[in-house]
């Protein structure tokens, strides 16, 4: 790769395999920074980062803020009830208002796909997507890939199954895009009501039988199951889901000895995975959290260093 040229991080569709690798490589150095006694470097001193969350989030927002602070950026949080979209203010309006505060980078999460793209179109500041609708959660997928690479050495040729509510999962979609780009073989597994139409065209296999796929896999990635799915008729009951797709000690026995068990958090223990598996030796759930900070540092560092050439007259 010649030079990192992305001013925004909106999704993994717009990154090449090489660029994804570059982020992961850069994140390695930042992981070292996070392990120091003084966990702070001056790289983004004087930069202002706004986190704009239209959806509740503690983990992702915290992880981003930590990342920004460890790079010495100034951060403000315009999230929660203070944000006004869908109360009459248009996206463009809001974007321009933020722009007027001379902000360098905006981290945005919204319940509807495409909002970060629309913001990016209207801003000179960098935009980093922290999750849009069911579409994309690029930093989660990057940290998942970082964790897999860190633990298994490489991603190419590895077999990964993503289990659960694929239909509503931006984590699944971003991981599918990223992992297939880096040459992993991805299977999605879950109740037929929660596997969206045409998902095979994203380059994955589909299975409704978790027991049949477990033995082959290098990575088992479990997704959070929202309790509302029962009321929306996607599921007959959470109990049936837990029995049919929940990952527990018995299923772990069927898996490869060095399998990785992953979960983007927060976990529903007893639903998508049992407590003993979550806390067990094959679980890398806490590594994912640690790596999340490093990956987000890398993303902030890289996107902030790139001028938006396209917008310069």
């Amino acid at each position, binding site marked *: 790769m010649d030079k990192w040229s992305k001013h925004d991080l909106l999704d993994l569709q717009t990154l090449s395999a090489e660029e994804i690798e570059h982020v992961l490589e850069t994140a390695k150095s930042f992981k070292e920074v996070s392990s120091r006694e003084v966990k702070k470097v001056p790289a983004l001193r004087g930069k202002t980062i706004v986190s704009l969350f239209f959806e509740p989030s503690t983990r992702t927002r915290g992880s981003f803020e930590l990342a920004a602070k460890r790079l010495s950026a100034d951060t403000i949080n315009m999230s929660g009830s203070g944000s006004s979209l869908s109360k009459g203010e248009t996206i463009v309006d809001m974007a321009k208002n933020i722009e007027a505060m001379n902000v360098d980078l905006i981290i945005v999460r919204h319940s509807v796909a495409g909002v970060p793209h629309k913001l990016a179109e209207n801003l000179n500041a960098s935009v980093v997507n922290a999750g849009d609708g*069911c579409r994309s959660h690029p930093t989660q997928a990057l940290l998942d890939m970082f964790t897999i690479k860190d633990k298994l050495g490489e991603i190419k040729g590895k077999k990964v199954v993503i289990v659960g509510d694929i239909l509503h999962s931006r984590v699944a979609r971003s991981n599918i895009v990223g992992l297939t780009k880096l040459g992993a073989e991805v299977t999605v597994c879950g109740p037929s009501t929660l596997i969206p139409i045409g998902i095979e065209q994203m380059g994955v296999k589909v299975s409704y039988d978790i027991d049949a796929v477990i033995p082959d896999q290098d990575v088992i990635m479990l997704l959070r199951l929202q309790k509302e799915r029962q009321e929306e008729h996607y599921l007959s009951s959470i109990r049936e889901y837990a029995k049919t797709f929940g990952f527990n000690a018995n299923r772990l026995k069927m898996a490869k000895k060095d399998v990785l068990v992953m979960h983007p958090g927060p976990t529903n223990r007893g639903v998508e995975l049992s407590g003993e598996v979550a806390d067990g030796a094959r679980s890398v759930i806490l590594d994912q959290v640690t790596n999340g900070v490093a990956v987000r540092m890398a993303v902030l560092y890289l996107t902030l260093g790139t001028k938006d050439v396209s917008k310069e007259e």
Partner: protein
Amino acid sequence: MSLLITNAVIVNADKKNTKPQSIFIDKGKIQAIGSNTDVKATKTIDAKGKLVLPGLIDIHVHFREPGQEYKETIETGSQSAVKGGFTTVMCMPNTRPVIDNAMVVEGLLKEVNRVGLCNVIPIGSITRGQKDQELVDMFELKKAGCLALSDDGKSVVSSQLMRRALEYSKMVDILLIQHCEDPLISAGGAMNEGVTSTQLGIKADPYISESIIVSRDIELVHYLGGHVHFAHMSCRRSIELIRQAKKQGISVTAEACPHHFTLTDDEVRSFDTNTKMNPPLRTPDDVEAVKEGLKDGTIDLIVTDHAPHSKEDKEVDFENAPFGIIGLETSLALTNTELIRKNVLSWEEVVDKMSTRQAEIAGIKNKGVIKEGYDADITIVDPDEVWTVTVEDTASKSKNSPFFGRELVGRVKTTIYGGKVVFQDK
């Protein structure tokens, strides 16, 4: 005031006259058509090199008056209509308040007459307040001037209520236009359900929400008689059902919009809210099916579903943005570019679908044909002029179109309504 159009290559639905003729207009009527050019007229228009069509008719537009005049008014809507070559439009009742009683209709018609640019006929709702609970007073609405009823924007969902509406409308002799969408299946979907929506992670509406209502209404007409006109057909399955129903002699008709034979759901990848309409843009196969339906007559009409929304309304996230795009000013050019020039339809067929058959289905008298004694509503078109759709050039109050920047072929040069020139292109 009289008007003479010379060198007129007249295109009627039944035939295109290759020999240029003259049309003499006086007292708002077409008085004479022939080779004689010696008639004394107040004004003469030379139509050399152009096509002369009966004034275009669109039985499916939204003019937002009363209630949402910031999006469009009778006045701005009429300006947009005549710029697109339309001399008669029928406006849908999903206004605020809903057009569901004679008073609202009368108020609207007063404004239509004041503006006087074109013929705007209000459509009443089928159910009071479009609430899907009780029927409107159909006789009253017909008497006030409505030629059709529709709950457009949504379906009459209750099958029982639709049954009664159909039975009653037979007696009143008024057209029912059904917006086909089962809301329990569409469930707030913002785009077509399919591979694209799966990739984009946007809440989606499967095509069956449309075809289920089409199928139900075909069954109702089959059982009860009467007639249902299906608004904005967008998917292969609906068109197949209608084709089959027509073969069996079931009295249904259908319409389609230019965006449904031009664009696919791939456009949504831009997250441009001007690619969000209801029914949504669908797959290339559905686009093909709409064209086939237009070609073989399964789809009777081309309508715009002109649905103005302000910049502020549309500049929100995709799922919360309102449905719909404007269409009056691009309709004929898109039809020419996508259908006539690609040999899907002939000019005669387009005149049929954009004028003659519209008048027939809605029961609009004395319009839709260039014929002696008919209203002098005429649209003169340059079929070969190439132009680019721009915001600046748009007459509608709203600028929500996915077609800005697109190059189209065929431009309306002159629109004549009731013998008066109401639009003249520079």
